[in-house]
């Protein structure tokens, strides 16, 4: 049995209360949502927070809803809710495709969207999806709320805009009528982190790509994104050649590292292959195929 170091525990009753607890317990306190990253890190003693502030009672952070022309996912929405959400299935099937491949049902029943975003693992599936869809995150502190584009949210591996004394409260995505979306992932075994993944959306209007987003994870893509590939594709017909060129541009912008999931050249290849496969399906979906 792996045993964490001694830790205190406090249960927040509201976001304001959680912020107050964070303030009170100092910089070595950590909020805990699903706990599927933090608890294993504590058991391995990679992380030793002094206090855990439990957000699991905060109903205000739960749920998935539409507000105007945006979809709002509460930070405490579980992966399983994202997987099953009819709202997301209607507008962005990419969520369902990605969630089906995230860990296993036990983890998805407990793990949260906010937790995944804030853990900021360089291999996080939802980071690729969020980056592809160019969503925003809402971060609250005692002094109020601020909104940050997802493509500015990550500073690097395990580092985000969420500062001491702040809590991520929701993630928002613009609804894009007519968008097709898709997620492609290679993993060594079901439930493993991706060797590489690509999540995309494409809007095809009048025979050309009017809008698109490409998100990539685990391949060293800056902000999990491939803006040059998107620029290339917008305004062009979604032909196989154009999709392939966009995928190549996306892969060229990646800087993967070799690890036990695979060597860098393979990951770079996957960035291209998976982007192409996702673009094909998303543009076909946008065209009603």
């Amino acid at each position, binding site marked *: 049995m*792996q045993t964490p170091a001694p830790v205190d525990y406090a249960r927040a009753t509201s976001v304001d209360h959680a912020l107050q607890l964070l303030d009170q317990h100092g910089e070595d306190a950590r909020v805990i949502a699903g706990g599927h990253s933090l608890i*294993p890190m504590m058991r*391995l003693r990679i992380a030793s927070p002094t206090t855990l502030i439990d957000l699991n009672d905060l109903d205000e952070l739960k749920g998935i809803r539409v507000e105007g022309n945006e979809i709002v996912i509460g930070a405490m929405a579980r992966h399983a809710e994202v997987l099953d959400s009819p709202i997301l299935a209607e507008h962005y099937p990419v969520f369902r495709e990605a969630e089906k491949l995230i860990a296993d049902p036990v983890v998805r029943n407990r793990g949260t969207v906010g937790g995944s975003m804030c853990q900021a693992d360089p291999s996080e599936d939802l980071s690729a999806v969020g980056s592809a869809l160019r969503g925003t995150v809402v971060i609250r502190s005692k002094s109020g709320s601020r909104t940050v584009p997802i493509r500015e949210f990550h500073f690097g591996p395990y580092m985000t805009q969420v500062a001491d004394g702040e809590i991520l409260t929701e993630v928002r995505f613009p609804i894009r009528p007519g968008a097709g979306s898709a997620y492609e992932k*290679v993993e060594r075994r079901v439930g493993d982190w991706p060797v590489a993944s690509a999540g995309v959306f494409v809007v095809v209007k009048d025979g050309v790509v009017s809008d698109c987003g490409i998100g990539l994870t685990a391949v060293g893509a800056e902000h999990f994104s491939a803006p040059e590939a998107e620029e290339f594709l917008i305004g062009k017909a979604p032909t196989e050649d154009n999709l392939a060129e966009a995928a190549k541009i996306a892969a060229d912008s990646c800087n993967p590292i070799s690890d036990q999931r695979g060597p860098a050249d393979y990951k770079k290849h996957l960035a291209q292959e998976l982007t192409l496969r996702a673009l094909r399906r998303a543009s076909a979906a946008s065209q009603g195929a």
Partner: protein
Amino acid sequence: MTAVEEAPVSAAGNPIGFGSMKRKEDQRFVRGQGNYVDDVNLPGMLHGAILRSPHAHAKILSIDTSRAEAHPGVVAVITGKILEGIPRPELLGDNFAWMPTLSYDTQAVLATDKVRFQGQEVAFVIATDRYTAKDALELIDVDYEPLPAVMDAKKAMDSGAPVIRDDKGQTDNSITDVMGNKFWESGNAIGTQEAIEKAKADPNCVVVTQDIMYPRVHPAPMETCGSVAYLDPVSGQLTLWTTSQAPHAHRTVYAMVAGLPEHKIRIISPDVGGGFGNKVGVYPGYVLSVVGSIVTGKPVKWMEDRSENLMSTSFARDYHMAGTIAATKDGQILAVDVDVLADHGAFNGVAQPTKFPAGFFHIFTGSYDYPHAHCKVTPVYTNKAPGGVAYACSFRITEAAYFIERLVDCLAAELGMDPAELRLKNLIKPEQFPYETPTGWVYDSGQYEKTMRLAMEMVGYDELRKEQAEKRARGEYMGIGISFFTEGVGAGPRKDMDILGLGMADGIELRVHPTGKAQLRLSVQTQGQGHETTYAQIVAHELGIPPEDIEVIHGDTDNTPFGLGTYGSRSTPVSGAAAAVVSRKVRDKARLIAAAALECSPDDLEWSLGKWSVKGDPDRAKTIQEIALLSHGSLELPEGVEGHLDATAVYNPPNLTYPYGCYICVVDVDPGTGQVKIRRFVAVDDCGTRINPMIVEGQVHGGLADGVGMALMELIAFDEDGNCLGGSFMDYLLPTAMECPDWELGETVTPSPHHPIGAKGVGESATVGSPAAVVNAVIDAISPFGVRHADMPLTPANVWRAIQGNPVRVDMAVE
């Protein structure tokens, strides 16, 4: 043979003999009422935790335990220096800091001079609870001077390589066995070499060479290793609850390690949550719990965590095999040669019979009939965890079976011959049994072609080849892989096999109580194999007592006879035979008692299941239950017949048993990503008589999943600095149900001619046989890209790299 006869059914609905029945032990497991070592809690018990080395190779300059000792709740902190100060009363070495391994090497209990692998035991904290013990580990200050590490086995013997075992005065990293050899050979070196040279010169022959690696994997049992030790300060009795596959062998080893009198040692292996060879050896942690109890006078529990289990306990494989096979162009195999570099880690802790320092790797000749074979195995030390020959391998047979089955496929590729056709052409024929192999092993029985044809029929081999051709034309890549394996299990004959001088025979004791219920006491130890059920069925088969009336007792050295334990698929071949033999002793005695009761001559009686009756007068009969009561009653017994109906036996097998099988795997490979999907897996096993077919199938299912894991994902690699890259289940991937297809099982039954009930053992068959089937299927799928071989695990990256013609080296960190 009675193997195929339908057994009568008991009142409880169980077969009185062989046949499928639910496992008796599952009543407690499915209710959560199992009792494992970590469930043992004794009054006043303390908890130990081990500080482990972060370095693969480093000098220990100093260890300061003062802060840990001052930590509230800490009772004692033990270091190697302290162990050095405890004199060992007798035998093997002079103090407690080092202990003997199962291969006559020494292993540090706690490091004194140097650490030699990442995860090595450095200090032992004993505290009032497990959390406190772990907290205190962080308060021990160790000053290390890191040394260059030997992580690449291929560089271990380079001149100037850092010397790992300077403690033994070594000047290089070679391993010398107890017989003084630095390498181990079998077969005929000269004859094999001549045959290969001759084939090279013959235009009608081919010679194929291939380097094949079986990388380091780990048994990863669900329950990690641990122990609870209590040395009663008054009586001097040591009781050790421990995760052991071989409690009696452990008792003797502790007697030798600790110098404790063996009659004062009691080893209890309660329920064991999987072993796969991981729980054969004696680990420093077990010894430390004993030392901890000596030091504190209290019971001390030590349970390792998952990372400790993966990083420090017995690994498996790590064989670099360079193979050569010669054959005629029409596919007749002429000779096989293999040169093996064996990575044994920092201490030679391999579990193997003494005379077989490379285990049973000799069986690399496989299931084929050819005259010349030779192997040479050279072991080396590296800065990796010690152990070896663990993980359902029958003493290196897994490596051997994988090697020959991969090499035969390489030959088929070279010849442009269908691999099924090549195998069928070379399989040993039924009339050739008993068959002596070129390395001197005598296979007991087999109908290889029948088994192979059944597997091909089940999978629809010819249709699959057609489908494959059509798909290839469309640019789709499916593969069909065959593995035909033969194992030698049931170690083993006393004259040939011992471990640390302990012969590999097994004792057994059967007590039939006055009311006809029975207790069977085994020397072997179940870790999930279902002994409590199958052994009851063996007795039921021999005596007609329903299995529900037979209690099987095992895992407690005070309550069971001596024997060497459960590993290498040896329980059914050895102890299972003992169960039949002891039952027959009881049956023979019952005959004498029945004759006395029926007032006739024993010669006038005949046995039918469960009773002795007078020939020609079946109404004059005594059931085994009636005889049991008579044997304990006042009936006047014939001269020379003692009362009661108990018996003991020790079974010394005349030979190994040789289970075999043919496995066929069908995969689909996505060449764009390298992903492998196992579409189908047909496994036809011949393990001789099947005592409980349901348990056999369960064992095969588990072994096939193991094989899929090793073929596709399981791996412990190391980086150049010595970091273990498989130290958690996030890094060491085990297969899940999602990677496993619906197993399609078949059977042929060729009983062992020398086993009392014809059973051969099956625990490891599927693990031994399946990796080659998966790998052969994947290579077959990607052969249009010019790939003839790629090493396991065939992760998507490795498959893709093989297709690119740039295969990765699997045992080192990916670059």
